[in-house]
Each structure stands twice: as C-alpha cells, then as structure tokens.
C-alpha cells in the first residue's frame, strides 16, 4: 500500500519538485528580500495563520440555524451558497435558451443581437443594479455570478445544438423520431452534451472569479471573498493570502471533480475523439 503510494509519487516527481521549489523560492524572497510581512507574508506566516484560523469557531446563522462551526467552514458554506445560487440560475436559464436558439433559426435571429449587446458588459458592472433590484442579500451575489456564468452556458449550448450533423437528424427521422421535441431530446441534446459541459466548466470558472467581487459589497458577513476584504482592512495580509489560496484550491477542486465525473461517466463514448 505504502509502496504503491510511493510509486505514484515518484511518477509525479517533476511536478512535485516544481511545487516545492516555488514554495522555497517564495519563503526565501519573503524572508530575505522583502523582509516585510505586510507586503509579502512568507510561506510559514501563511501556514501559521492557516493553523490559527482553523481552530476558530463562529456562529452559522443561516435559515434560522444556530451552530458553532469553524470559521473557515462557515465562510465556505456562504461562498458555495452564493456560487450555487448563481450557477443554478445560469443552468436553468442558459441551457434552455441556448437549446432553443440553436434549434430554431428565427428565434436565434431575434435573441442573438440582444445577447451580443449584453454579453460584453463585465459582470461586475452590474453591481449597482444588483443592489438596487435585489438588495444586500445572498441573492444579489448570486445574481452577479449568474451574469458571469450564463453567457458561456448559452453560447456553448447554442454552438453544440447548431453543429448537430444532418446525418444524425435524418437517421433519427427515418427511424421514426419526427417531432422537434423528440429530435431535441434524443439526438441534439446528447450530441451537444460535450459542448454544453465545456460551457458549464467555463461558466464555473467565470462564476468563481466573480465570487470575490460579489461578496465585496456587503451581502453577508461571511464568505471567502468577503473575508479577503475584511482581513485587508485589518491589515492581516497573511490571512488574505490564506483565503486567496483557499479560493484557488477550491476552484481547482470543483473543476477537477466536474471533469472527472463528465469524462468518466457522461462522455465515455468520446474516448476516441481527439480534443
């Protein structure tokens, strides 16, 4: 067992060396060159700050719940809540809109110019309206993440639906699959699935990036993004870095988990396809 783990590790030796060297370099630069915890906390500073904050508890006051939980966990729960509110809305709206646009040409011509005008507006530019329309609550943070995530989902779903090969549609038709509903359900959707999931991955990335700004304007007293600003005001730059790294690792984890699930389960028929 241990031997096997060691073998896996030695197979990744170059990657490991790369990460270790970066950490050592960081530590040396912070301690001997910058020599200032405010400008650049060292690796050990960040590690101690992380160990320190892990043991701190706070109250989770969500949905009338009243638990004492580690503060990091509470921040994580809030952030994931904001993130999922936005992403679920983006999925529920983006996929059907993209499907309809890709399948019915006239509707595409109606909707496409509107989307092309709204899409280049950066999600963060919506903050004033998010506050005015929704107020300072988690839904407003979710709204910003929704704005960031919905367009990649629409566009990839649309592209996937538009590129459905004629031969599959015709093959389905001669096999007795004739209505638009059936063709979408049994041909276009499975065909477009790789493109849709790629869109969801991009959307999750963009949504995750919007998280910090979405929590910045005070939608709640917790959240990974909110805490970055909170500790910045308190000049706890080591904790700022702890939260930054947490955001990075979580984003990486979410992406990997999704990719593992999609490639392994949903899209195994594409194994032969070179991406």
């Amino acid at each position, binding site marked *: 067992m241990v031997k096997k783990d060691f073998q896996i590790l030695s197979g990744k030796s170059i990657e490991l060396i790369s990460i270790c060297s970066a950490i050592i370099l960081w530590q040396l630069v912070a301690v001997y060159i910058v020599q200032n915890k405010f400008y650049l906390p060292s690796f050990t500073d960040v590690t101690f700050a992380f160990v320190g904050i892990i043991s701190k508890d706070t109250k989770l006051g969500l949905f009338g719940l009243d638990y004492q939980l580690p503060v990091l966990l509470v921040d994580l729960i809030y952030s994931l809540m904001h993130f999922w509110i936005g992403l679920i809305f983006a999925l529920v709206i983006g996929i059907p809109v993209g499907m309809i646009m890709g399948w019915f040409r006239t509707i595409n011509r109606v909707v496409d110019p509107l989307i092309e005008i709204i899409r280049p507006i950066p999600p963060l530019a919506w903050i004033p309206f998010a506050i005015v329309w929704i107020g300072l609550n988690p839904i407003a943070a979710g709204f910003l993440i929704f704005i960031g995530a919905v367009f990649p989902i629409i566009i990839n779903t649309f592209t996937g639906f538009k590129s459905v090969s004629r031969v599959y549609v015709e093959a389905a038709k*001669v096999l007795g*699959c004739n209505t638009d509903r059936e063709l979408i359900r049994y041909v276009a959707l499975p065909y477009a699935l790789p493109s849709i999931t790629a869109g969801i991955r991009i959307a999750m990335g963009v949504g995750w990036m919007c998280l910090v700004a979405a929590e910045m304007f005070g939608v709640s007293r917790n959240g990974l993004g909110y805490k970055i600003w909170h500790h910045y005001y308190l000049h706890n730059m080591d904790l700022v870095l702890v939260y930054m790294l947490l955001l990075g690792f979580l984003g990486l984890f979410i992406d990997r988990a999704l990719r593992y699930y999609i490639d392994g389960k949903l899209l195994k028929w594409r194994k032969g396809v070179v991406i």
Partner: protein
Amino acid sequence: MGKVKVVNVSRKFTKDNDTSTLALDNVSMEVGDEDFVCFIGPSGCGKTTLLRIISGLDKPDEGEVYLDGKKIESPGPDRGMVFQEYSLFPWKSVIDNIIFGPQMQGIKKKDALKDAEKYLKLVGLQQFRDSYPYELSGGMKQRVAIARALANEPSVLLMDEPFGALDAQTRNILQQELLEIWQKKNITILFVTHSVDEAVFLADKIVLMSARPGIIKEIIHVDLPRPRDRTSLEANVLRERILKSLLKEQTR
C-alpha cells in the same frame, strides 16, 4: 409487402442566384415486392434524390410516391434507410443504436432488446454488443446501421451508397451478407450505387439514369442465376453493356 410506385416525380433545386438544376424530370417507375433494385448513373443524375424522396426526407415538387398504395408524405418506420456516411449515434452503444427505432415506436426496452439481439446475430456482431461506434471499423459500422434499419421491420430498405466508403474486400463481403439478409427477411431493397460491379452482383433490376435533367434511361432486368459469379462471362457481358451506356452519358 413492399411495393413502391413512383408517379411523375420532378424535383428542382434552386440556388440563390436563380439558376436551377432539374434533378429529377418526370420520373415514373414501379418496384415489385421483394425486388432488389439498384440505381446507377453519372453523378448528379438524381439517384440519391429519388431515394430521399422515397424515404420522405425530401419532397418532390411534382408527382407522388406510394408505398403499397399509400402516399408517402414523411419519413416513417416502414422504410429503413442506410446512409453513405456513418450515421450511428456515437453516444449510444451498438445495442442501444439498434433499439432506437423500436423504442421510438413505443416498444418496451426489454422486448426491444430481445429483438435487437436477433438482428445483431444477423449481422454477426454479437461480441460487439456493448461497444461504442468509435471502437468499430467502417464495415462493422455499416453492418450495425443495417441491423438498426432492420430493427423497425421495414418493408423497404433504402440504401444510399452504403458501401461506398469501404475497401474492396470488405465491400465484397458485405454485398454477400446483404444478399443473405435480403433472402432471409423477404424485403424490398432499393440500392443506390456508382459501382457497376456492385449493381451486377446484387440487383434483380438495374435502373440506369442519366443526368441533367435526371431521367430513367433504361431498366435492365438481370436474370443471372444466384449465387452469382462476379467473373462469369454473362456478368462481364452485362457489365460491358452498362459501362458503355454510362460512358455515352458522360461524353454526351
């Protein structure tokens, strides 16, 4: 039963710049039950268009097509089709591809699977039951496509250059297998090809078409005894006759 009747069918394709080609010009013909008919002709003679009109994927500008006296308006499970391109759904395994048609007719998955095994056996691919199309060779893909078309129990099988993309050896094997299936299942087969050799080996009737406008030039009844010998004298004589006729078309 699988009697196909084509009555005065015309089909014109118009391009954006107002030039139009008459792909089919007032074509009429009849195909009897359990016939094996091959369509052959220079490219652009409308043989594929005619097949697509019979399948219901394309509509004639004028004229009608009947199957067993019933007018054809749209694609339907009574006409199976095998395409030249590989048309298996890549996201479905072989067996799921075969049961697609029956499931669309509302047959329960359990019953459809039982039937599908039969067709899988007919094309000799039992060990590839759960493979995905990307794991199959070109010849196997077309075998599965035939099985999938047969699973709806059509009375007519329409084939649009189904072996066009295969190498010569595989093509010969599949032609032989197709004849066996045709004899076993008692169905009518309409087969578009550009290979004279293929037509002479397979067909009861060869429909020779000419291009621009697309019309039926000649219908040749092939009465060579089956099983046919590809290199027999009679086959060669017939081949030469068709080749000469096609050559005249191309130099016209």
